[in-house]
């Protein structure tokens, strides 16, 4: 091994580390910290069934399912996710208007699927 090889390797590693740090910085800037609301899906309901939010205030929804694959869809805010057993899906939601809005399961999950919905209330 010659010294030039080690120097090049060090430079590359340093550049890689800087780029990772820069990326993290960009992510942190784009996604400021937000309150986290955990939403649990199970056949055929969400808990909580009502999600209370403030207009313009972002929240991170952590979505989990206790049984089968579910969907989470809040079409008024263009937010949706697949919710897979054993995994946590995360979506950022920043309501841009006040009112009462529906979220629902958009993956057919069984005989009670069509009643599986909840409400987002934005004040």
């Amino acid at each position, binding site marked *: 091994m010659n010294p030039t090889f080690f120097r090049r390797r060090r430079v590359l590693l340093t550049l890689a580390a800087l780029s990772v740090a820069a990326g993290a910085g960009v992510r942190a800037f784009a996604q400021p910290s937000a309150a986290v609301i955990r939403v649990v899906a199970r056949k055929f309901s969400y808990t909580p069934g009502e999600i209370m939010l403030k207009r313009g205030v972002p929240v991170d929804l952590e979505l989990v399912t206790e049984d089968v*694959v579910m*969907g989470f*869809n809040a*079409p*008024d805010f263009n937010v949706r996710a*697949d919710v897979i057993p054993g995994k946590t899906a995360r979506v950022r939601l920043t309501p841009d208007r006040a009112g*009462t*809005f*529906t979220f*629902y399961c*958009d*993956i*057919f*999950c*069984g*005989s009670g*699927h*069509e009643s599986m*919905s909840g409400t987002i209330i934005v004040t």
Partner: protein
Amino acid sequence: MQDRFDRRDFLRLAGLGGVVVASGLAGCATGPGAAQASLADDFYFVQLSDCHWGFEGPPNPDARGTLGKAVAAVNALAEPPDFVFFTGDLTHTTDDPVERRQRLTQFRDIAAGLKVKTVRYMPGEHDASLDRGEAFQEFFGATHYTFDHKGVHFLVLDNVSDPAGAIGTEQLAWVAADLASQPREARIVVFTHRPLFDLYPQWDWATRDGAKAIEILLTHPNVTVFYGHIHQEHHRMTGHIAHHAANSLMFALPPPGSQPKRLPVPWDATQPYKGLGYRSVEADPPKAAYRIEERGIRA
């Protein structure tokens, strides 16, 4: 021609209180497809939808009788339709695969009472979304296919076997290839279950990748879509494509977004079967026009 007008008169006079909608599309016929279509006769077919066999509940005290009444009404038409098409939700969903097959068996046996030579089927999400169409295919075959009839190319599009309510890239490629094989002026009718456009996503009245299907369909000027799912008559244009939703044969649903929850319209004992029914569609291939007549169910 005389026969055509006689049939139209019959359709107009024999309706059971349904609303008549004229759906003239795309203007005059030109080009090679039109020449082909001009050789064809006009004809009519019947669309039945959302039978939900197996449903029980207050929204329909005659849950086990309504489908049979519809079959009898079709059989009583003075002139039989060229074919009958069921646009999905033949059965009401069940988590039990054995019960699903029992319901499909019972539905098939009742539908077999139709005195019409050709009866075609497609699934709804209640039939197919819990097993990706496996049980449906055991009874009725493919969930998406094409057929041709008297100058019209029919395309049956499955947007329910995927539980996410999507058509999927493979089927979309199939649609694109099928349309590419058709003349630009071909008369095309699409049968599907869910609306291809975002009618009201808050109630799951949409197809996740329906916009891609519409984009493909828009390459042809004479396309009309007949669908079910929303349990009510509804008409909407996307570009030059007309989309016509049919009534259910089990329970009606409220207009999109008219109330907070998508709950069945309560049964009205003073007007039994209100909002339920089937439709006849008279096709005029040379004009690429479809005359729709909604027909109710009689006690």
